[in-house]
């Protein structure tokens, strides 16, 4: 087990190094100059040169790369070219927003995805099953940004209501306002993952319900409820845990658009505006953060799998 973890960590480090080089180079070999964006239409050759020097953009690539890597591991992410703000400070301020959005999203995913998946499986080929399946197809096929726009605009147009589009609040200081801010976007963001979990739970549960030990349980006279909840569901949830883990890193990507539409001041909104403005310091650090989360989540899921299913052994 220890050897397995060490091997996986080494592989993760290699993957992250590869990603860091790719992100760093892709940003720089592409056309465009962040110094010009910072200075706007009034830029002069002198000021552009001054910004290049200030941001060390004149240094050789390997020097820039090493400086960035050193900053990344020491959490000194540099300064935003466009806004002049400290990226580490912005990151610290915005991370809780994105984490909360992801937590709420996972909450909706589990709290609605699993029960509806169960309902779908136990009512196979009956109206509740059809309803859940149609909903799942809808959730998977309709883009979140479109649903988000409708969720925002229709109530505003019809009833003059929209989630608060003001300063992003804290769950600790203004909980109810916070819930109104995070509820709708997290539900929209959860739609596709919820749909995926519904389908996964349904198919896994249907398979388990056909297993010998379930037939034995029924033969012993257990009620359908006990059979499903105590014997079948537990085993069918193992792949669900895996998928939920992988979803977490995917949600980081989904938050980019949702945070922008609902005006949540999180990492997604930050990376969205930074990509548009070619803000090196922000983009490369946030992409690395996302990649790190994805790699670590993969590792965590693999390890967790072993605990959930004793039949699995690492070698």
């Amino acid at each position, binding site marked *: 087990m220890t050897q397995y973890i060490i091997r996986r960590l080494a592989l993760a480090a290699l993957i992250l190094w590869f990603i860091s080089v790719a992100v760093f180079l892709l940003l720089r070999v592409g056309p465009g100059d962040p110094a010009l964006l910072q200075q706007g239409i009034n830029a002069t*050759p002198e000021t552009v040169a001054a910004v290049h020097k200030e941001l060390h953009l004149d240094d050789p690539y390997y020097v820039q790369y090493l400086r960035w890597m050193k900053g990344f591991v020491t959490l000194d992410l540099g300064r935003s070219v466009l806004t002049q703000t400290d990226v580490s400070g912005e990151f610290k301020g915005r991370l809780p927003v994105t984490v909360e959005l992801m937590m709420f999203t996972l909450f909706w995913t589990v709290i609605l995805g699993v029960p509806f998946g169960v309902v779908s499986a136990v009512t196979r080929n009956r109206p509740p099953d059809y309803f859940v399946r149609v909903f799942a197809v809808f959730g998977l096929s309709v883009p979140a940004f479109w649903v988000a726009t409708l969720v925002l605009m229709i109530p505003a147009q019809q009833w003059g209501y929209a989630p608060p589009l003001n*300063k992003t609040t804290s769950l600790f200081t203004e909980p109810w306002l916070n819930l109104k801010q995070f509820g709708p976007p997290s539900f929209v963001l959860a739609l596709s993952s919820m749909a995926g979990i519904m389908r996964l739970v349904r198919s896994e549960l249907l398979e388990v319900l056909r297993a010998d030990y379930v037939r034995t349980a029924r033969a012993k006279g257990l009620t359908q409820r006990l059979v499903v909840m105590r014997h079948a569901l537990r085993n069918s949830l193992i792949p669900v845990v895996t998928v939920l883990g992988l979803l977490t890193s995917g949600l980081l990507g989904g938050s980019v658009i949702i945070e922008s*539409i609902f005006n949540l001041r999180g990492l997604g909104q930050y990376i969205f505006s930074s990509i548009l403005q070619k803000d090196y310091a922000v983009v490369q650090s946030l992409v690395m953060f996302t990649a790190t989360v994805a790699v670590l989540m993969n590792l965590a899921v693999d390890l967790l799998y072993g605990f959930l299913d004793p039949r699995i052994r690492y070698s």
Partner: protein
Amino acid sequence: MNVSREDNYWLRATTGRMTRRRFVGGAIVGGVGAASLATVGCGGGDDDSGGSTGGAAATTTPAPTTAPVTIKKGGVYNVAFTGPFAGVDPHNSVYGGSGIVPVVYNYLLRRQVTPDAAGAKGIIYDVASSHKVEADSITYTFKLRDDVKIAPNTRGVPERALDADDVKASFDRISDPKTAANGFAFFGRWVEKYTAPDKTTFVLTLKKPYAWTEANLGNNLIGAIVPKEWLASADIKKDAVGAGPFMLKTLTEGQLAQMDRNPNYYIKGQPYVDSKVIKAYADQATYRTAFTSNQIDVYGPQNKDETAELKSADKTIVTYSDPGVGYNSFWMNTKQKPWDDPRVRRAVNLSMNRKEYIDIIGHGVGEPIGPLTYAFTKEALTAAELAAAQPYDPTTAKKLFADAGITELKFTHPTSSNMIDYVNIFTRHLAAVGVTAKPDPQDAGTWVAGYFTSKLAASYSLNQAYQNPDFALQWYHTGGITGNNAYDNGWAYPEIDAALDKAAGTADEAARVAAYKQVQKDILAKDPAFINVFGVRVEVVVKSYVKNYPAGLSSLGYQFEKEVWLDKA
């Protein structure tokens, strides 16, 4: 996110510092999720391009006239825009920060260039209480007020009165090329020197007479007067300390800026509102939703149809529609083929059916424009003059392209939200005259880099707004719009430079207007490498309780936000 114990709702609830009734009540509100919202945050602060100017054709549907009412003080005035703040540098802000600078800092004076329908405001003094132009038309002597006191701040800048030394220090910064100030070209081309002989006197000497001196000194983006201690601060791009009507309380990039009333403001009783909040939205739909859900007080619709739609949903809102001072243009680099051929440039201009742009993009509202937008009602060429100077003539365009051997053209454009509509019409017009136009969309960073360094061959672009005719016409001056050859397309004629300088230096208005008309005709006759397409109208909708909304003043209207008041409980 640091939360103190006292601030923490959950800790207060669990430790008994919040009554059970209050806790449960909060839970019910949160559960239902339909409680009314406090009106905070957001709104439609126009940047330059989003602003409106009060041309003679301005139309307004004002709120129903009522008997004179007492001004209600207090409340939060909420505006918004789409985009980043990108800092709050007083001299080179071009994004959302440019909506903060004019209300936090002061100017020597203001001058409204384009009179609005309600009457021109003319010159309005600020730090200066009066000024005199000597007979030589190059020496301006400003007498300064002694009570323009710096706002309370936590930056260690003393709460003293602004004086002539602050004006001089501010102008030194604008003149310094390292600042990349918006006013660099004005100071470089026209200003000879300036002195502060005493605390309340400031003397500005020009190189030669210049009719737009007051307009430029009062331009939001050019002439901010900053306390000299603050000019030395490393944080001048991130925070603001001035003596304007408001003081910047918070600036959260990507979210909002809150400005509170400056208790030291020299006009006692103003501003009328307690705070002005500018929200930054990433998405136009979010911006509109914030307005329709009463979270902001002002919104900028995309066109007249959207205005009508909002008006039909809420008949109480007040709508404004004014000629905009922004430009949409086609830029050609005469240092690259085939744009060095005047036949090609002329053919592009003749192939443009400007009416179609107006019908599709302007929803039927707007005017064809030449070098100057129609918002400058006096100086701009009339429709008849434009029809003669740059007619829609596809037949001739086709012949010119054929003579030049052109069957295919390439051009770039930034991938902004509405640019694709312009590009599609443009390529269709060229196809109609036998030329296949191949657009090369580029992200903003890539595009501006190529544009700035003149590496692009040709580009469609949506340019900034220019608050006076001289500023806009610098596109045709050697040295270009920035005065330092950035964005240079190589199109340069000494006689045009001389004519532009002469027009700008003509004090007599009638003679100046005639000079501007003539130079525009001369420019068009020389097949310019910078072609403007049409002038849009800028739509604004405002909640009915917002009084004294400074409509029709372009971004110059920011200076009157101190007089905005909210007629609501």
